[in-house]
């Protein structure tokens, strides 16, 4: 008996969804085996994770807080990946976005005492601009000189972190600590708990306005990709850049613009995180959102709304995983999920045939 792989012409849509779910289930099963092996009780562990992420409205709110930067960075990656631009630099663009947003109140660019409806939009613009500018560097290098964007975006992550550290340890340091002073209240994104006076049930819920930014960005991206000329042009470039050029599309310009928008989304994520959660700059504002975003974009198969779903799943893993272990197991499960997803792609492109070879009955070679 042999197992053969035969290429398929097309894969039905349901198969994609089923395979994605199956990959997650298989990944969790592998994780369970490892948990059992090291002496844990996998069933209890998973139930605990679920409970700690979705058990009540309080933890659900925390899960959404974790999901917010993941959605924005996930969209950043998904957008670039659709054009086969491998932006591995969402992490650095996130940090630059946080830095840019912080600059508004720390330099300060706006004088103190400005109202929130001025400060917050200014921080959004600054964050998006800083992230976009950071992504412009690999974009123009790729478009003009054909420099490999994987290398440049990856390396720029380290520079971005060093840049942030310079400001946090140096000019903006609060009394020599590795962080800045807290932002003034008008630079804080409104949270649900801020409305507890009117609606008591919201007390203690930390979900902030950044989630709305993320959902609006998702909606816009979804419409642009599926309904507009730009979405069509990006689809063409992503599938066959030479055909896109033949269709009269300026591919180099698209490479730069898409890189900048991708960076701006990641930058907005950074702004949302410092303004909505941390309320100050530190060098450790990201536990690797920009890298998790790569897995999320992949898990979502580059669909904007699916990015939201995947981000909530990963938000839960990050949040509740800490209940098991501060690091280690949750990161491992993330890694296994990505691994299973990539492996499941084989089944999308090939069908498996199990059968007995016809030749087995024939005569031996001469």
């Amino acid at each position, binding site marked *: 008996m042999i197992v053969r792989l035969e290429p398929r012409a097309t894969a039905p849509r349901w198969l994609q969804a089923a395979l994605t779910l199956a990959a997650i289930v298989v990944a969790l099963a592998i994780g369970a085996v490892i948990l059992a092996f090291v002496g844990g009780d996998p069933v209890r562990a998973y139930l605990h994770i679920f409970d700690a992420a979705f058990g009540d409205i309080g933890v659900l709110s925390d899960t959404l807080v974790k999901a917010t930067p993941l959605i924005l960075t996930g969209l950043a990656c998904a957008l670039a990946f659709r054009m086969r631009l491998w932006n591995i630099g969402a992490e650095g663009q996130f940090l630059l976005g946080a830095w840019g947003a912080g600059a508004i109140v720390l330099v300060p660019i706006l004088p103190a005492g400005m109202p929130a409806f001025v400060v917050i939009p200014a921080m959004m613009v600054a964050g998006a601009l800083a992230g976009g500018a950071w992504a412009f560097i690999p974009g123009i290098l790729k478009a003009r000189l054909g420099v490999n964007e994987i290398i440049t975006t990856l390396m720029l992550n380290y520079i971005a972190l060093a840049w942030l550290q310079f400001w946090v340890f140096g000019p903006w340091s609060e009394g020599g600590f590795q962080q800045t002073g807290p932002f003034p209240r008008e630079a804080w994104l409104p949270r649900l708990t801020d409305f507890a006076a009117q609606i008591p049930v919201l007390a203690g819920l930390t979900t902030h306005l950044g989630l709305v930014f993320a959902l609006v960005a998702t909606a816009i991206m979804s419409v642009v990709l599926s309904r507009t000329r730009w*979405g069509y042009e990006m689809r063409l470039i992503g599938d066959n850049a030479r055909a896109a050029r033949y269709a009269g599309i300026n591919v180099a310009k698209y490479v730069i613009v898409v890189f900048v928008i991708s960076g701006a989304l990641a930058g907005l994520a950074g702004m949302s995180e410092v303004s909505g959660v941390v309320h100050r700059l530190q060098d450790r504002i990201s536990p690797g959102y920009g890298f998790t975003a790569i897995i999320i974009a992949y898990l979502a198969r580059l669909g904007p709304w699916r990015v939201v779903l995947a981000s909530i799943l990963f938000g839960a893993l990050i949040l509740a995983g800490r209940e098991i272990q501060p690091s280690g197991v949750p990161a491992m499960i993330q890694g296994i999920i990505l691994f299973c997803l990539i492996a499941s792609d084989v089944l999308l492109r090939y069908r498996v045939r199990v059968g007995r070879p016809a030749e087995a009955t024939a005569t031996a070679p001469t």
Partner: protein
Amino acid sequence: MAGPQGTQPRTSTPLAIEAVGIVKSFPGVIANDHVDFDLRVGEIHALLGENGAGKSTLMNVLAGLYRPDEGEIRVGGEPVQLRSPRDAIAAGIGMVHQHFALVPSQTVAENVLLGLDRPRFRLDLKRTEAEIMSLATDIGLRVEPSARIWQLSIGEQQRVEIVKMLFHGARILILDEPTAVLAPQETAELFENLRALTDAARSIIFISHKLGEVLSIADRITVMRAGKVTAAGLEPEGVTRADLARRMVGRPVLESLERTKVEPGAVVLSVEDVTALNDRGLPALRGVSLQVHAGEIVGIAAVAGNGQSELAQVITGLRACTGRVVVDGRDIAAGPVRAAIESGVGHVPEDRAGVGSAPNLSLIDNLIMRRFRQQPITRGPFLDASAARSKAQTLQGAYEISAPTLDTPVRILSGGNLQRLILAREIDAAPRLLVAVQPTRGLDVGAIEGIHQLLLDLREQGAAILLISEELEELLALADRILVMYEGQVTTAVERPSAADIDAIGLHMMGGEGADSAIDRASTVG
């Protein structure tokens, strides 16, 4: 290492190879349905058929690349199991593919050694070269073992592939469309070489879909259609081209197309003193000037690599150039591709899958590729999906593009259908000028006929057409004027070309008067 073991008369009956009842199916298709095929020692047996008829599948079975579901292969009367190309070559079967498997930077001798178990350790190139020379001389093939592959012409490279297979011990050669890449004179030379091979008791399976060639070279002809043999072992004396064409496509094919007289109108395309570089930065066009009028088909005849591809790219805006490219009075030489599209330049590119289409996108997306900026498909920033769908539906019906649905990715279309899709898209835009490059390459007789008809219809509607083709017969059938390009220049123009001009055109394609005394040999191609 098999050397020549004395020649046997060509009429002898022993069979070199025999395939009996071969069945090979792929998901959804039976590529070979109980196919029988035999090859006598010392003969050239042509295998004729449309694309998708099952020729390549059968040959891949004989070459050890596919294993048949049913059936038996016998070599010299003994059943054999061919599990890999290595088994096939051990049984004396060697295949020369359309795309050569040669390493350009290495010498002929080094390439010939590739795939052999020798040398075990120390490479004695001098000895190998001598062995290759003696084998080639015995068989009457000219090769230079120390030459590097990149220095050789396509015809010479093909000869290296043949010598390589012989050196590996092949007594049965399978040649997959060997003339597709050759100029007429090179074809004539190939045919001489093949005859020399059969005189040295080698046997040849010659795959082709060019009827004229098959009739002039084959001892016997087998025709396949839709996975089955429709005519086995025909003698070329008894059959006509029309016979063969009918057996290939299953219906009579009109070989000479109806051409109405169209009075050429105003100049639509004027190329003035254009120079351009190729992808490697070397001069590809050296001062080309030409004009195409409305209602006229101008053919460009050239052997691959003489600047004709770059000419098409320059006119359609895909390649930078100096000089002027004027379409209806507007100079688009400097402009982006969009300037060409907006000036009404349609383009059927040479590379259908690599340039002319986006393989993983749907029929709809591919059909609107060059007109998505126009009403009614575009509405502000939005694309109107239903307008795009109805446009695609109309085109699919009008141009008979067969595909499961409009949402099917075009990569699963056959070559002929993909080309119809591209033509539908380009012609529907009502171009002032259509630049068609190799529009029928690799297509079968039925598909070629349809595409020729589309081009003639477009000409009748008053469009200017620049047709770039390596098929002289195609140019003769369609063109009002043929320009020959050689090394980046237009060297000759032939007005109202006819079959009588074929030798002269072929000679100019090879570089003019100095190019060998091949003019009499080229007549085998007619």
